[in-house]
């Protein structure tokens, strides 16, 4: 895995997108590992009766996707210090979800120096389904 250093990061840099296509199998497995049996995530008929077009992608799975954008970028010596997100609209099995990040700010005076990322996930229609933020400590170039 490659390492990014603080000196090579500038405000406005674009990161990603990390493209995720959650299938019914993925939702089922995520439901299993989180021990969340909520039927809207695995029973299509039930989801339709609740007014959704298909089974819903778990809010926390989408949070994990945004976390992955940040951790893939920061490399093994980066430290994710804070992560937040809000699920604004629903995502469904079969959607193509693009997870993006952008450098919102840098703090050279912090030790180790820190970077703030703006994070978001959008679907193919360009709708932002999830919006979030992360703070990462990065190493200085040796």
């Amino acid at each position: 895995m490659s390492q990014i250093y603080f000196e090579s990061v500038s405000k406005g840099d674009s990161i990603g997108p990390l493209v995720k296509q959650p299938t019914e199998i993925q939702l089922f497995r995520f439901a299993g590992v989180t021990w969340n049996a909520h039927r809207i995530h695995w029973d299509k008929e039930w989801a339709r009766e609740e007014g959704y077009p298909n089974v819903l992608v778990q809010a926390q799975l989408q949070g994990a996707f945004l976390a992955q954008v940040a951790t893939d970028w920061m490399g093994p010596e980066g430290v994710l210090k804070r992560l937040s997100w809000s699920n604004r609209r629903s995502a469904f099995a079969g959607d193509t979800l693009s997870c993006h990040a952008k450098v919102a700010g840098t703090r050279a005076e912090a030790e180790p120096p820190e970077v703030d990322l703006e994070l978001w996930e959008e679907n193919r229609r360009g709708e932002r389904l999830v919006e979030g933020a992360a703070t990462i400590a990065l190493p200085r170039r040796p």
Partner: protein
Amino acid sequence: MAEKLRPPHADLIPDDVAAQLGSTFTQELGEVSLRDIQRFAAAVGDTNLLYFDEEYARTTRWGGIIAPPTMLTATMVWGRGPLLTEMHPDGRSADGPVRTPPGRMVGGGTEVELIAAVRPGDSLTRTILVKDIYQTEGRSGPLVFLVIETTYRNQHGEEVLRSTSTAINRPERAGAEEKGV
């Protein structure tokens, strides 16, 4: 932003829910295993070697395999969870010790502060604090918000993670149909 009404001025927050404000609940969560970590990462589709390759992870600042950052907050139920007879028809069950108002609940957001790495073999405890309860009048009807702060500690008593989550409840109010809620 609509005005936030708090008990006793919030008519949609039942007394037993309002009474929890400021209460804390501590739960033993048990051990986080290497398998838990790797199954979680596999389910997310995150192949980061820090979750899968001990030899590689040892060469990094972490000194070994660590848990993915959202694993603790994503785990809905720890331990065995409810028995089948304790579950609702929609697959949900009473989630933890915090009482929620009647009506549909949705997640309103999660904030995670990562304080220290969680490693295979760690035994975790969490303390849940009911931080805020309020109601607002949204465009599509009244909403009740529950703000829950959770602190996770490992077997050494060290804080490893703190999360704040907001649950949004659409209460069932008499006469709601007439208002088109």
